[in-house]
């Protein structure tokens, strides 16, 4: 009898810190189990093995910042049945998307100091700006339980269960006292996508938005509250421009404070 087909998993990297694919190796309790359920066909951070495509599931980390990578992602898409982006770089351009807001002349001068450098694009953009993406997993970094959920959902042919609500709901679920209401600490929780487990408020600091905007965020209202708490326009500009600066809701709100 023929062996049942094991789905082929590939992990791809574009401009990033490797933290999201490391989350897979950080699944200490599940790693060998996952490795038993899929064929790890390509995962350069962890293996010399290269099995050619097509791949059943591609996990893509990182953003597009070079012409070469803009071409490479097309090949990855063609070779992949399901393509899942993992992390803030792949879903919203990452911290390196801060270049997108630079004065063009200033940016050009930075690039111009390196004329023969393999061309760097003037922007850092998410994978979905280039190819069709089947599912996006948020976070800088992603949450490894959510990663296991995505892989498990894929293996069972169902939709991953990753709630789109705000970090506030997670705070309530873990009974953390609201840092903004109780202590007047500015917090991005009300507009930020859940998934981290509301870590920052549990450590007495405001959420800094590393999972990017939630569905239908009211950023203008939150900015008014920050203003009442004494945050300057410069501060608001900087908080929206961090690890998910290129995500539409954060980008537009940050532009309000551009001088």
């Amino acid at each position, binding site marked *: 009898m023929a062996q049942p087909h094991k789905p082929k998993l590939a992990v791809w990297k574009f401009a990033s810190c490797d933290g999201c694919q490391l989350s897979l190796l950080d699944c200490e309790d599940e790693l060998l189990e996952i490795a038993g359920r899929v064929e790890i066909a390509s995962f350069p951070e962890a293996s010399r093995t290269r099995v050619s495509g097509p791949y059943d599931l591609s996990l893509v980390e990182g953003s597009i910042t070079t012409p070469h990578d803009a071409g490479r992602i097309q090949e990855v898409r063609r070779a992949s049945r399901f393509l899942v982006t993992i992390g803030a770089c792949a879903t919203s351009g990452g*911290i390196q998307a801060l270049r997108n807001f630079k004065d063009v002349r200033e940016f050009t001068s930075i690039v111009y100091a390196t004329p023969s450098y393999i061309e760097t694009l003037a922007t850092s953009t998410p994978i979905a700006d280039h190819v069709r993406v089947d599912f996006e997993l948020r976070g800088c970094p992603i949450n490894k339980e959510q990663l296991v959920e995505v892989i498990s959902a894929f293996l069972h042919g169902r939709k991953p269960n990753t709630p789109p609500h705000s970090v506030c709901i997670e705070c309530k679920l873990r009974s953390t006292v609201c840092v903004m209401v109780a202590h007047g600490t500015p917090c991005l929780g009300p507009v930020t996508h859940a998934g981290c487990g509301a870590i920052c408020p549990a450590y007495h600091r405001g959420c800094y938005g590393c999972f990017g905007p939630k569905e239908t965020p009211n950023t203008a209202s939150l900015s008014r509250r920050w203003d009442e708490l004494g945050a300057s326009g410069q501060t608001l500009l900087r908080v929206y421009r961090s690890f998910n600066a290129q995500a539409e809701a954060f980008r537009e709100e940050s532009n309000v404070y551009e001088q």
Partner: protein
Amino acid sequence: MNSKTIKVDMLARVEGEGALYVRLKGDQVADVKFKIFEPPRFFEALLRGRSFADAPDITARICGICPVAYQMSAVHAMEDAFGVQIDPQIRALRRLLYCGEWIESHTLHVFMLHAPDFLGYADVVQMAKDHPVVVKRALELKKVGNAVITLLGGRAIHPVNVRVGGFYKVPSKRELAPLAEQLKWARDAALETVRWTAGLPFPDFEQDYEFVALQHPKEYPFNEGRLVSNKGLNIAVREYDETFVEEHIPYTNALHSRLKARGAYFVGPLARYSLNFDRLSPLAQEAARAAGLGTICQNPFESIIVRSIEILYACDEALHLIDAYEMPERPAAEIPPCAATGYACTEAPRGMLYHRYQLDETGQILDAKIVPPTSQNQKIIEDDLRRFIPQVLQLPEEQLTWRCEQTIRNYDPCISCATHFLKLHITRE
């Protein structure tokens, strides 16, 4: 004369993306290029205009494997600029956090990235089929490192709890207690790891390196000390820029560092160990002797044993720190920003990591310089390849290529870290 090229277009089991090109003429190595083609991410540019307080969170994103190292160098550089003294218990917690990163990162490298080279497996999953006990113990050990970071930092990758001056929240002595139980198990597992790695087959390859690492009067170095070498270097961290220089090499996206006076130098576990053996805990020293290592280790392939010894030391040190811990009165020192320049080096798992920030009177970053360990080791990596390849030249192509990759992996290169830079100048002849 026969001419041959070894090409590794995608270097596996390293962090980030790199390649290797070696050109051979007969039995001579004509050219070696360790190429880093990871796209630059311009961290030093995007830090400009940010607040000093953003630096630990932003620079953590240079590397997902050693974010604590970036956070530690950033906070120390800012505190150096503003003349801030931190509470001794905050200092202890920072050392504890670093212990967690060393345990997690070194275990990842020893078992998942490096050991498969010695035993002929493509990866740890393949290795697990024949060595299930070893791999399961490794995963459990790595998990203890991550547990330390998660408790102190909130999460293992890109911790959220580190700030300039200290932490947002400090743990009580009681909260740290469960970690001690895990660390006692980890200390035994680390001892077992030292024995296991000492039994791997090592090529005969002792080299006369210039080792550079931090040196503290009493402690094995994490966060502070003077920069010393075995060839006469002994400087304060703020003299770094006068002593070291970054060079622009056409074929790689990462700058090459060298000592202005002497050229290539070596940072990382071998350098720390060889310069600070007497500052290791008695348990770690004893394990090193039992493993057959001297007080100086000059064979880069044996870095896998030295990393294991550092895992053991980190477990041991973490237990001492937890035992002596008293909760500080406040989680962070007050920070009075002023116009100044701050400097810091700390010991990332892969080696010394330098940060320098120039700040204005409001604490806004005007200029940043970051020199990660992999940039510093690039020259030594190429030197090793030049010297090692003639020893293995007779091997069949596939094995020769594998040996070249192993020579690079001795350094646990972190390629994402090495390509964070602002400017690259190309030199042409």
